[in-house]
């Protein structure tokens, strides 16, 4: 597994700020989700959630390398991408509660979080649905010459759907500044990778499009950030797209926070991945290298809890949508 962290260390040193930044993004994702998962389980919140917990390093690492002007598209498992891209807890919780103060005014829910101010072009409940849209965002970057890039996040399972293939090829042919990030968590719902493709490394698919394919440890936010930076620079130089495969794992079931209904994953496998937990890793790095103290990390956890309470409080106190407005925003007039 090519982890360019060491190689890049000299050029892009792991600063205290960077460690804190990545840690904060990841802790915010993890705690937001664990809490939201419980709220749905208890019936307090409507709908169902696809939790991102375990994969935090991917969203955090990539998004730490982006600005608000850069665009991302996401998936059914989209909270992590939104939070990593800078989304606020208040409108996120409010959206999950279906309130007017939510990111989508309660119209979208968990699978459609959007934040245009942060370049979060939307979660998507159709597998592969967001991939061509990111290509379009990148087309706009190239058309305008504004130096921005687009990133599409999607899963291992999504690389088997037609939209993936068409999008990557199109971006390659048009040389667009887009980065395709496969979050390979080993499963498409309940189907393991070896039952849905004959490859070990999905990054190999890059060769079908004549673009670079890079594999990275998806539990190491620094490593993810490094490969993202390389891809972004390449895109900005006008050299076209990169396909990044981040090997990662989701801790919860495909959906919800309950245990697995059927044993499609070996519990030992789950535990093994948890020993490589992304947040533990960054904390260890921070402390070992003397960049961040354990207390400072604890402070981030505490601050996150406070933000969560604030977000939930805000959401609960927010007004419900009014059914008389049900036809608003179907069209722009």
């Amino acid at each position, binding site marked *: 597994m090519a982890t360019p962290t060491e190689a890049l260390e000299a050029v892009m040193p792991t600063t205290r700020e960077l460690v804190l930044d990545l840690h904060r993004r990841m802790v915010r994702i993890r705690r937001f989700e664990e809490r939201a998962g419980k709220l749905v389980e208890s019936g307090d919140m*409507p*709908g*169902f959630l696809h939790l991102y917990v375990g994969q935090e390093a991917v969203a955090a690492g990539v998004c730490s390398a982006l600005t608000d002007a850069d665009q991302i598209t996401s998936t059914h498992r989209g909270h992590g991408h939104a939070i990593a891209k800078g989304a606020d807890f208040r409108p996120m919780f409010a959206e999950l509660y*279906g*309130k007017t103060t939510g990111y*989508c005014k*309660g*119209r*979208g*829910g*968990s*699978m*459609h979080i959007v934040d245009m101010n942060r370049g979060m072009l939307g979660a*998507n*409940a*159709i*597998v*592969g*649905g967001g991939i061509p849209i990111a290509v379009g965002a990148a087309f706009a970057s190239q058309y305008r010459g504004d130096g921005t890039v687009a990133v599409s996040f999607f899963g291992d*399972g*999504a690389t*088997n*759907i*037609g*939209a993936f293939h068409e999008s990557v090829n199109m971006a390659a042919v048009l040389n667009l500044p887009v980065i395709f990030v496969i979050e390979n968590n080993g499963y*498409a*719902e*309940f*189907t393991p990778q070896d*039952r*849905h*493709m004959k490859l070990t490394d999905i990054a190999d698919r890059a060769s079908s499009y004549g673009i670079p394919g890079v594999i990275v440890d998806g539990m190491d936010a620094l490593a993810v950030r490094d490969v993202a930076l390389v891809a972004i620079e390449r895109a900005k130089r006008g050299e076209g797209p990169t396909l990044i495969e981040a090997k990662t794992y989701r801790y919860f079931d495909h959906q919800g926070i309950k245990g697995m209904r*059927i044993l*499609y994953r070996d519990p030992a496998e789950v535990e093994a991945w948890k020993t490589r937990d992304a947040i533990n890793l960054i904390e260890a790095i921070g402390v070992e290298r003397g960049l961040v103290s354990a207390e400072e990390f604890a402070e981030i956890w505490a601050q996150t809890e406070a933000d969560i309470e604030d977000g939930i409080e805000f959401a609960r106190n927010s007004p*419900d*949508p009014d*059914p008389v407005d*049900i*036809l608003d925003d*179907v069209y722009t007039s």
Partner: protein
Amino acid sequence: MTTRELTYVKAFNEGMHQVMAEDPDVFLIGEDVAGYGGVFHMFDGLLTEFGGTRVVDTPISEQAIIGLGVGAAARGLRPVCDLMFMDFVGVAMDQIFNQAAKMKYMFGGNVSVPLTITTAGGAGMSAAAQHSQSLEAWLAHIPGLKVAMPASPYDAKGLIVGAIRDDNPTIVVLNKKMLGVKGPVPEELYSIPFGVANVVREGSNATIVAIGRMVVEAEKAAANLEAAGISVEIIDPRSVQPLDIDTILTSVKKTHRVLVVHEAVEFGGIGAEISSQIQESAFDYLDAPVTRLAAPFAPVPFAPILENAYVPDAPRIEAVVRRLLERK
């Protein structure tokens, strides 16, 4: 026949088990239909009973899933291809409408495509715009395809069997919100052919033609209206393609007033076709315009308060029937 109470999804599942036991040419393919038994547990137990050759998990590749079914059906097998959510028809539409449905005709009758597609539609689960749709109007507009929407456990079993035994491409749309609804289901294998409406309830003052889960809401409304001395006849077409217009017309010619109700958006919904056919064929019998009750012209919203307002329900059906009866 021994009959007992089963849930809608168990009834469907029983139909799958029995028809697969009966006919070795039937196989099931789709995402997580084998190991997991389908995300709605529609296919529980099939892998264990029939093995991995006949119950097959796939990559997330809906075009290939349906296309595989088309090719296997053209060779004489009877594939059941699962599409999980009806909202996913968009990624497989070409294989459904340009391939499966047209093959027989454009090949001069030389090929039959006994393919069954299963899927789940309908709102009411806080699943939002891309996981809650009712798109039967699209499917019913495709010559060559047949489309059923079971509205009871009895029909869920009978229609999946009828679909698989049918020599044409068929699609059976289960309603997600009905999966746990119970009703009487015979133990034996039986089949409901497409194109035969069900007179769910007899009545004399007005007819409600209800599609899918709206049958249940119509029944609630009819019970209330009965208490108020209003007698409503409920027709469930069961399949929207072919449409058993004769049963509908017989009812309308008796009641002279008719409401068509469905979950899909009203504009361009299947209610438009039903309404048009009624007024074309029973114009002189109508004491009021054929009336439609359906979703407003918007995507399905997430917030429960909006979604509840979006999908027609018994109180609104009741109110519209009352208005219909006031019409002079």
